[in-house]
């Protein structure tokens, strides 16, 4: 029997492709694949789509940008102040594409705003991943892929920022040069590698250009592919809710719902970024002028994602922190804020999934996300890191704070020096307490119901507020989680009283585990609810009495 031949154009195309690529299997697998729905799952999409906008607007810019440090006289008539000035071809072409190319300024501004939103959405996406425990098994690898992309995004931003070769970005490069030179033993040579000789030389712009438009985006595209492949392979995580388990995925089919939503989302994000580029000026390099090692303007800040390093540099006190050892100079006042601190941050972030699995003794697959309240220490540490980031970013704007609020810059810096130690600890403590409080609230709600705002008076004159029991879906939401306990370890001595090898290491892990899980709130159980009910029986009967008087909400029962 001959197979039925397709008759429509679409059918014929599909048949043609399938006969050559077996694409039918792929389509069958993916077309109706279910994805869970939640607004926070869109954060990563924002990053992806701003990346596409970056590629598109960046392609436009490369048509007009000249990545060269050759000195030229500016030939354009506008801006008038620039005419005849000596500058690098990079700066000249940047100004030229802004003033002479129609839509060039728009594309530059869209590109810059997209870069800021790109890094921002990655960071917020990562918050979502961290606070909901989406990094847990089996997603550790994909988490590391994402973290690598964050670092690449920072590198993409920095290399792009420096390309126009203006005074601001030139000073940024000079700061990088200073930091690089502080690296022990090899610092001077690394500086020479970066600049192809002494700062600034004439190689840095072409080198940054190659990194910015080829190496980094190439790596990003490869990693985005891997990131999405793993996401589809492992199926997306889902928020807890009734009917959602680690063995299923509840949501909507890829086609048509997600195809339409994602396409729509792409156009909305591209539209918003265009709106930003059209209405908000950014990085008017002709106001700063071409790079000259002498001038610098006050109140200059890097792009937001570099603020924390710049702030840390400002907070670190200098005197006493440059050590000369055997005639060699070790600049701890640079190494600590600019290299050691970010190093610790990214190492901690990278190690986190493995660290947490170790102290939880957890080897299961997780597909249902955590509610942040149910992991108080993780949530607390996440918030503490965020607070440290904000304090450092504030420190990077200390000069603006000083001028805007007429405060002494020394006082601000000293206050922030104290805060950088106190703030994160305080934030951790408050967050952990708040999480535990919310867990108690969950218990309370499950066992005693919602306040209904209805006040009932009994025949004996007693007033009570009627509580509405939770529906089973809500009970499930508030009790579905696991409550991890600190690790249990084998005793130090074995049965014959011999010290056990490896006990000390076990004990250290146990101590860390206790830090994580010693303070905990047990979830409500059906038994507890039954007990609460039998205790409250008499109310239930009496509340049904016709003598009841209802009042308006807000009042709590006094007892």
């Amino acid at each position, binding site marked *: 029997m001959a197979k039925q031949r397709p008759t429509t154009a679409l059918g014929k195309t599909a048949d043609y492709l399938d006969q050559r690529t077996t694409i039918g299997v792929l389509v069958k697998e993916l077309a109706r694949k*279910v994805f869970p729905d939640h607004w926070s799952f869109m954060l990563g999409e924002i990053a992806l789509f701003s990346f596409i906008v970056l590629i598109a607007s960046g392609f436009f810019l490369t048509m007009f940008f000249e990545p060269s440090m050759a000195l030229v006289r500016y030939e354009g008539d*506008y801006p008038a102040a620039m005419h005849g000035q000596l500058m690098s071809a990079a700066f000249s072409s940047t100004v030229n594409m*802004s003033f002479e190319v*129609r*839509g060039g*300024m*728009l594309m530059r501004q869209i590109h810059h705003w997209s870069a800021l939103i790109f890094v921002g959405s990655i960071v917020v996406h990562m918050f979502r991943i961290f606070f909901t425990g989406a990094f847990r098994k089996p997603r550790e690898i994909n988490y590391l892929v994402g973290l690598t992309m964050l670092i690449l995004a920072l590198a993409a931003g920095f290399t792009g920022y420096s390309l126009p070769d203006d005074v601001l970005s030139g000073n940024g490069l*000079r700061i990088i*040069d*200073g*930091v690089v*030179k*502080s690296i022990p033993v090899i610092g001077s040579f690394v*500086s020479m*590698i970066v600049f192809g*000789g002494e*700062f600034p*030389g004439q190689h840095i712009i072409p080198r940054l250009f190659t990194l910015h438009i080829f190496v980094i985006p190439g790596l990003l595209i490869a990693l985005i592919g891997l990131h999405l492949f793993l996401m589809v392979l*492992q199926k997306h995580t889902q928020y807890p809710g*009734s009917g959602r388990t680690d063995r*299923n995925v509840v949501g*909507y089919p890829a086609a048509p*719902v997600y195809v*339409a939503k994602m396409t*729509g*989302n792409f156009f*909305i994000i591209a539209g*918003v970024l265009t*709106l930003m580029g*059209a*209405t908000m000026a950014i990085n008017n390099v002709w106001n700063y002028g071409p790079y*000259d*090692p*002498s*001038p*610098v303007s006050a109140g200059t800040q890097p792009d937001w994602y570099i603020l924390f390093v710049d702030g840390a*540099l400002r907070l670190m006190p200098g*005197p006493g922190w*440059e050590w000369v050892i055997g005639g060699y100079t070790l*600049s701890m*006042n*640079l190494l600590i804020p600019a290299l050691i601190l970010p190093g610790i941050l990214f190492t901690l972030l990278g190690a986190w999934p493995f660290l947490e699995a170790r102290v939880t003794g957890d080897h299961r*697959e997780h597909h249902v996300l955590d509610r942040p309240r149910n992991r108080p220490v993780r949530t607390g540490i996440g918030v503490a890191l965020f607070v440290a980031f904000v304090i450092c970013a504030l420190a990077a704007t200390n*000069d603006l704070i000083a001028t805007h609020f007429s405060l002494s810059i020394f006082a601000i810096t000293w206050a922030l020096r104290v805060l950088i130690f106190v703030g994160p600890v305080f934030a951790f403590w408050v967050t952990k307490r708040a999480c535990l409080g919310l867990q108690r609230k969950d218990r309370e709600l*499950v*066992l*005693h119901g919602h306040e209904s705002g209805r006040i009932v008076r009994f025949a004996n004159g007693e007033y009570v507020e009627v*509580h*509405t029991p939770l529906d*089973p879906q809500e*009970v*499930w939401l508030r*009790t579905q989680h696991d409550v991890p306990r600190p690790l249990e370890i084998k005793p130090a001595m074995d049965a014959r009283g011999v010290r056990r090898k490896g006990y000390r290491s076990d004990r250290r892990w146990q101590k860390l585990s206790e830090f994580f899980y010693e303070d905990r709130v047990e979830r409500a159980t*059906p038994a507890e*609810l039954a007990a*609460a*009910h039998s205790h*409250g029986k008499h109310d239930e009967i009496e509340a049904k009495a016709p003598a009841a008087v209802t009042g308006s909400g807000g009042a709590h*029962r006094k*007892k």
Partner: protein
Amino acid sequence: MSDNQNPPADTSHEVTVTPQTGNAVGHAERFPDPGIPEHKHRLTDTDPRAAKRAERTVTFLFVLSILGTIGSIVAYVMVPPDGTTSGVRLSTLLIGLGLAVSLLGIGVAGIHWAKALMGDKEMVQERHPLASDDATRADAVKDLNDGLEDSGVVGRRGVLKGAFFGALALFPLAIAVPLIGSVGGDWNISAFKHTMWKRGTRLAIDPSGRPIKVADVTVGSVFHVIPETTEEFRESHEWITEKSKAVVLMVRLNPEDLRTDQSPEGETWSHEGIVAYSKICTHVGCPVALYEQQTHHLLCPCHQSTFDIADSAKVVFGPANRRLPQLPITVDDEGYLIAQDDFAEPIGPSFWERLK
């Protein structure tokens, strides 16, 4: 314990399964999972007029997008930038707004279509454990072992293996050596320790390059200084690199205000209250450009390192550790300010071999 969790008397709640039913199955550890909540229909599912309305909205949005694209092209043609900043801004704004409407129209239409008209019934699919089953694993291991067996390197031919890995490890050197040889320019890191200041170089004004006469320097004035050189050199690349190290900030103080400078025993590095210090911050190398006349403090705008000009430019606040190096100056026969020599120590941020 509170005892007011009773249900309201007049409840008209649809949910008939209350948590208490959990008790019926005994004192389980967990409440039961009630399963996926009942599907709620949207207005567009039940009311055909609402569905029609949503359809018209989506159509309108697509049309709006088309209008946006047309508007953008009209703006491109009709409003050419006249070269002034405001002209460029207007062109940018109009082209951008048109493009934004064009994109947002498609985007909002797509989302509205998906939310109002496409099926919104939740679906459930099973997950399967990611690990492959034992039989597959065993087969995979066997295949790998067979492959290894076929290669004939297992357990013997140590020399072959050594040569193989050796060759693989070494070949990148043939690329790396030429690259490393040239990537760092001349690799002359001693250049960090010297600037173009020499004995007798005149101090000149930045950026004009005009030499400075001592008579022109009034008390309290500040000069941004570069070494005097030819105009031709100042239009070359080498100049930018040299200038990056050589820039100097010169101030004339009242001689009685100048408490100390960096002159060693028996030498005078300043001239009648005129002191010249490297403008490159000893922190990370920003130009230290903000001078406060009242306090004689010099502030780096990048990270707020603060130096006291009246007291050897020592650090009074901030992240810098070392004072700014002083340029020893004097006056030549014609009354111009000149350098006595290069800086006595490397300028700018610290590096490992700085004192070697």
